[in-house]
Every structure is written in C-alpha cells, then in structure tokens.
C-alpha cells in the first residue's frame, strides 16, 4: 500500500531518519502492510504502572509504554542533536510564561487525539496525571512534578500548568518517564492495580493485547489512533534473558530483532556477521558508565588523590578494547551524556594517562610508595575496593583492565561483587563503599540527572530518609548554586553556560570519573522493512508503527 507509506514519511519527516552512524545499515527498505514479527527483549519489566515505584525498567518503556502512552514531547534528532519536540498530541509548542516568579505552561491538545475507547484526550487527563505524580504515594520519581502549584482546565482541550518555581526542564513533564494517563479510566480508582499487569486502553499506535509474565508481551494496532496506523498486525516481545541464547534466536530466525546490551560477546557476534541481519551502532546514548567515588571515604576524601586517580588510567585504550570492534574508541569526557550533549563540554578530556602527574600530585600531598609499589601515607595504603554488579562480563573485563592500570600507577584496587538490590538499596545509600562501577542513564535530552547525582541536598541522610541518590556524598563548594540554575533557568543561553560551568567544576573536583558512553546496538532481520533506527531516549522501537515486513 503505497499511500500509507507516503503519509508515514510525511508524518515522521521531523524525525530525520538519516542517522549519522548507520553501521552496516543500508537504505531503509519499504515496508508492506500486514504480518507479525517477534522481537527479543533481554529484560522483563517488573510492572506496567509507569508512575509507581515498581516501574523504572527501561524495557518496560520500550515494550509497552512508548507504544501506548501519549506524550507531550517526543525526542527527535534535529541538526544532529536529540531534542524534545512537541508531539502530535499537542497542536504546537506550549506557551510558557513566567510571571512573578511563577511559570505557567499552556498545553493545547490536538482535537483529533483520542483514547482507544473513543474518549477524546482532554485537559482532565493532564490534570489527573500531574496530580497523581505530585500527590500520589509510591511514586517512582517526582522531580519537576513536585513543584506544580496547580493545573487549570479552562476547556477540555487546554491545560495550564502553574509551577511554584521556574522549572527549566519543563518539557520533561508529560513526556520522558510518564506521558499522559486517561483520567476517565483511572481517576478515583487504584491506578497501580489497574495498570501493573498491563492495561487494555491506549493513547498510542499500539494496544497491549496480552502480557504473559515470564514469556512475552504482544502488541496489536490501536484502531482509534489518530496518527498513522502501524503496518504490522502484531508485534510480540519475547523475553530472552540469556544473551547467548538471544543471539542464537536471531540467527535461527526465532526473533526478528534484538537490542542487546553491548557485551563483548554480542559485539564479536556482530563483527563476525550475523547472516541476513542488518545492524545499527549508535554511540550517541544516555548511558554513562563511570567510576563513582565516595568522596567521604579514604582515600577519596582527598581531591588530590581523586585527580591523581584520573591521571592513572588510559580511558581511551579501555574504550577502544571494549567497543573498538564497532568503531567506538573515545572515552566519555563529561557527566553530560551524549544525548544531553548540547549542555556539557569535554571537561574531563584533560585527564589522560600521565604517571608523571600522578607522582607529582601524590608526593605533593605527602604520599610515598611503599615496598610493594603502592602509594601510602601515614601508614595507610592507597587501597580501595570497587563495588560492581556480578555477572556483567563487560564490566568484569573493564575492571580487570582498570586494576592492571591502577596497579601500575601505584593504587591497590580490589573488586567487590554485589547485586543491584544490595548496592542501590543498602550499600550506596548508607555510603558503605569506596568506589563503584555502574551506569547512569539519561532517558530524556535534558540535564535531569545532574542535581540528583551531585547536589549536596541529594546526599542520602536521615533527613531525606536515605532516599537521595548522591551516593558519592559529593559536596563541591559553589556547585549547588550552579546546579540549581540548571534546574531553574528557563532561558537557554545562561542555562547552557551554567551547565558548562558545572562540567568544569566537576572535572576539577573529580567526584567521579566518567569512563565510557555505552553505545546502543540494534540488530534486525533482513526480512524487516521500514525506517529502523535507534532513538536513544525512546528506545529502538520508538517508530515501531513504521516497521513492517520488507516489500
């Protein structure tokens, strides 16, 4: 059906599919209507109540949320950068005003926008969602929403949100993690109970047909969707948690697409070539792997030691070994991940392997090498344990390289395995660690993670019920004010300037060391057609409705 394809291309023109890094990707193959496909998913989401504390699985968003929950802003690539763009849920960019220190955002809803039961999407839905997040119990994440003063609904298609204080990342509201939920179905009911095992309503191109726990999620087209309809009759996500088995499933034709975490094994599979398969490797991601340091624990309570540590490793060589096979060979140089790249600089670029600088810094701080060749001061050796999540081969290898390089620089490093439940539930909040290797994920092209990671108010404490996520106890003089400005300054230019200043301050104080931006990898069978590409914010299946079987 040619007309369908044509309208699709028009509708998605803003998404500029000419991805800069298409790997072995050929030009998109036209998709035909009908047919069904199976996609391998390496993680099963815990629940589908996207607002609740059980949410937070990125795969929940990929498999169900993106296709069923309408969002005010989409993340699209414009001029090579990922930016939030008003979606076709709205009639255009919302009007934003700041009067007397209060910010108002006026959303005008597309009159064609309807839920799958035919009820128009209305301002009541905006009000419901905002207040659920702001006032609800067991909410996954409230930042931004907690500052909402009120939501006015002058007419069914206009919602006016008033913020108590200006919120610079306001585009994240009704987008990013949450979107907009149907008030007429959920209001006054137990939202969590109605949504957690999947729901049958939708405001997106897809409807969740069923979610068989442990096995699969099946999506079918939403007939009432006001935008372009999906080509495929059915998409099934099968949960295959074993990476090796997942690749074999792709090779054997049991699944048609995979979005594997870039383990070395996966990369060698790609390099070896998977027959009849196309792939895209995208280094522009929101995944930052870093060595997180506890700034209050010996030896990292000393800024000099942290700086010396940064000079003692060849991060480019590590990244080259990890991702060189797919053409990624540069270390991450900022805590602003590539998808929020417009905000940061490469401030950490100054830290390259330089053992001379290490010696100068350490001796200057009163350290001397002991008989075993490790730095020591006052009888205490510069020795530390790195917390890591067991069972991730890429991290295991990364740590082994780090260990070898740190040893040569005079730091004694040991590896301590733990589980994510223990690390993020107990060890990190209580500060019972010296260093850790884990990934920070940006899911929206706004610098949302910075304050929660580095502001002193986010240090887990009795006062905040150990719920902050500044696990490293970072408290850099002057940084809090800059972070506040990033959060609050609605004016883009000074906000970006503040971000760059924060980047520099972080690089000077080295509260942690960024290692690599974990590239995204998407593989799909040659029998698929359509514009298939990775969206680092919404995931690889953001435009699933444009996928189809090849013509």
């Amino acid at each position: 059906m040619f007309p369908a394809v044509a309208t699709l291309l028009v509708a998605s023109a803003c998404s500029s599919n000419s991805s800069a890094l298409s790997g072995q990707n050929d030009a998109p193959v036209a998709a035909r209507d009908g047919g069904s496909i199976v996609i391998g998913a390496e993680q099963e989401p815990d629940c589908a109540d996207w607002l609740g504390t059980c949410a937070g699985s990125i795969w929940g968003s990929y498999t169900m949320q993106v296709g069923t929950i309408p969002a005010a802003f989409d993340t699209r690539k414009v001029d090579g950068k990922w930016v939030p763009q008003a979606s076709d849920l709205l009639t255009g960019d919302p009007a934003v005003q700041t009067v007397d220190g209060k910010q108002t955002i006026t959303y005008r809803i597309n009159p064609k926008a309807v839920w799958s039961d035919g009820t128009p999407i209305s301002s009541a839905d905006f009000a419901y969602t905002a207040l659920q997040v702001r006032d609800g119990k067991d909410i996954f994440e409230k930042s931004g929403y907690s500052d909402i003063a009120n939501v006015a609904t002058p007419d069914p298609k206009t919602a006016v949100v008033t913020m108590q204080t200006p919120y610079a990342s306001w585009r994240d509201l009704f987008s990013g993690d949450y979107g907009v939920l149907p008030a007429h179905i959920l209001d006054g009911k137990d939202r969590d109970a109605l949504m957690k095992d999947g729901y049958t309503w939708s405001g997106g191109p897809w409807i969740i047909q069923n979610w068989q726990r442990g096995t699969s999620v099946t999506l079918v087209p939403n007939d009432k969707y006001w935008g372009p309809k999906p080509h495929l009759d059915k998409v099934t996500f099968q949960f295959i948690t074993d990476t090796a088995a997942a690749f074999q499933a792709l090779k054997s034709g049991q699944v048609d697409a995979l979005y594997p975490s870039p383990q070395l094994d996966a990369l060698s599979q790609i390099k070896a070539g998977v027959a009849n398969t196309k792939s895209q490797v995208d280094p522009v991601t929101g995944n930052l792997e870093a060595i997180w340091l506890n700034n209050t624990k010996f030896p990292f309570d000393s800024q000099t030691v942290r700086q010396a540590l940064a000079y003692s490793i060849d991060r480019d060589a590590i990244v080259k070994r990890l991702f060189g096979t797919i053409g990624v060979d540069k270390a991450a140089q900022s805590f602003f991940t590539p998808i929020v790249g417009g905000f940061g600089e490469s401030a950490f670029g100054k830290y390259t392997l330089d053992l001379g600088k290490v010696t100068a810094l350490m001796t200057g701080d009163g350290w001397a090498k002991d008989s075993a060749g490790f730095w020591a001061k006052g009888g205490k050796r510069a020795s530390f344990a790195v917390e890591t999540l067991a069972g991730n081969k890429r991290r295991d290898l990364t740590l082994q390289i780090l260990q070898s390089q740190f040893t040569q620089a005079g730091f004694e490093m040991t590896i301590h395995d733990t589980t994510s439940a223990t690390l993020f539930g107990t060890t990190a909040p209580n500060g019972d660690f010296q260093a850790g290797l884990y990934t920070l994920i940006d899911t929206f092209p706004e610098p949302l993670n910075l304050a929660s990671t580095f502001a002193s108010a986010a240090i887990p404490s009795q006062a905040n019920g150990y719920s902050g996520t500044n696990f490293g106890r970072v408290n850099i003089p002057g940084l809090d004010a800059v972070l506040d400005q990033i959060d609050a300054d609605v004016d883009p230019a000074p906000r970006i300037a503040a971000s760059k200043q924060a980047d520099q301050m972080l690089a000077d104080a080295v509260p942690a060391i960024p290692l690599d931006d974990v590239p995204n990898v998407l593989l799909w069978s040659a029998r698929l057609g359509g514009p298939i590409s990775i969206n680092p914010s919404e995931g690889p299946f953001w435009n699933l409705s444009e996928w189809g079987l090849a013509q």
Partner: protein
Amino acid sequence: MLTYAVRRVLLSVPIVLIASFVLFVATRATFDPLGKLRQSRDPSVLHRETIRLGLDKSVPEQYFLWLKGFVTGDWGVSTRTGGDVRKMILQALWPTLQLIFWGIVFAVIIAGFIAIYSAVKQYSLADHTLTALSYVGIALPAFWFGLVLIQLLAVLPRQQFGLTDPLLYFVGLHSPGQSGFNLDYLRHLVLPVLTLTITLVAMWSRFGRASMLDALGSEYVRTARAKGVPRRRILLRHAARNSLAPFVTVVALDAALLFGGLVVTEQIYSIPGMGRLFLDSLLTGDVFVLLPWLLVVAAAVVVCNLIADIGYAILDPRVRLR
C-alpha cells in the same frame, strides 16, 4: 507401610518449619525488603511500608506473622512486580512440571535400557563406552550442553539447509500465539528436555547398572539360573524387577530436586519456571517470593519422598513382609 509413610511425612513437617525459620532469618539478614523503595524520593513511603510489613517488630514476631499468613493462604506481595506471590509461584510451577515430566519419561526409558544392557554385557566395549559417556554427561555443566546443543541442533542445521525456521526451537515452550499440545510445543520441548535428560541419564544409568549387577549377583537369580529358567525371563522377571525398587527411589528423590533445580535450563531456554523465578527473585532481593518458593519446593520434595516410599513398597515384595 502406610503408617510408616505417614510418619515420615509428619516428621518432615518440623524439619520444613525449622528450615523455613533458618531461611527467614537468613534472607532477612541478607536482603532489605525495602531496598527498592529506598531509591524513591518520597520518605513517607519507607515509613508506611515498614509499618505495613511489620518490619519494626522483632524477628521471631515477624516470622510468626509471616507463617500465619503463609498457612492461611496469604503469601504476600512481591516487592519486584507487586504481584500476588502465590499466583506467581503457581504459574511458575506449570512449565517446570512439564519439563520434569518429559525429562523423567525419557531419562527413565533411556537410562533403563542402558542400565540393563551394560549390566548384562558387563566389561564389554559397549559397557565401557556407555560408562565413559555417562561420565562426560556428569562432568560438563548443563549450561555448556545447553548452549552447544542450541548451536548444533538448531542454528547450524538451519544455516546448512537454508531453512526459514529452525527445526527445533529454544525460546520458551510455545511460539507466540501458540498454546496447548501440538507440533510447535514438541519442537520447543526437544532441546530443554534433551539438556535435562543428558544429566539424568548419566546419573541414573550408572545407578541402574549397579543395582542390576547387584540383582544379577544375588542368590535368587543364581538359583533361578541353576533351575534352568530362560535367560530373558531371569533378566526381566527377576533381576530387572528386583532392581526396580531402588531405581524408582533414586528417580523420585532426584526428580524432587528438579522442582527448584532447573535454574540453568530454564535460564538458557527462556522458560518461566521455578528456577527462573528463584534466580530473578534472588537477584532483585525479592524476599517475599524467596521464602514461599523454598517452602513449595520443600513440599514437593516431601511429596516425592512419599512417592518414593510407596513405590518402594509396591515394587519390592520384601518390604511388605515387615
């Protein structure tokens, strides 16, 4: 006999209770039931949940609260999925039961044949070969077999013969949209069951061979031989029948441990059974699933032990005399 069996089941109740208490204390000491909530930025959540789950009470009190709930059918709510734990465990039992059933059927048949053959042809080349193979079956871990079998029996043939579909599937027990007992199910079943069968056959064939040899060396077989009873009749009526009792016992006991022991097989073949449930719960610190899981598995073991006892009594004529 029946009273003996009942007595054993009753005896196992306090053992299971002790086990559950030890595990309760151990899991509470290891895991923080509120771990996930601690990442939430709403401090009131923690306080509310602490009260709701009774985490402010002493450990024995918590244990009795939990036990009371468990006995009355309230198994709690998973911290991971927010789902009803009892439902989760019952759902996970079904695929595991299927694997165990098919695994046992094939393993018993194959191991039985090997055992009889090896015992009869003791020290022959075939016996040595089968023994060596059984060692290989025991010596390599299940995940190794699983991955190699997938490559050899599913991926390679498809690439060699240019098929659109592999002959054997290895993701789950059904293709999307399929269910019930059909060809699709069988094509999914072969590889996981084969993986499971290799280990079982390796263990059971060796045991079966030993008990066949025991029976063949016993006095009544020698007497039967002396009386001129035909060889085949001796083998099947006398020797095989008498070695059946210990064999069945071992099968039942090993089968019991499969209820929670298929972690690797279920992981590789993406089967949402008890093993996967355990691993997922352990890795995410889902304490409220782990304990009931352990109790269900323990109950399965007790039931299988009972079956083993009864089987022994039925199959071994000597037991009835007692």
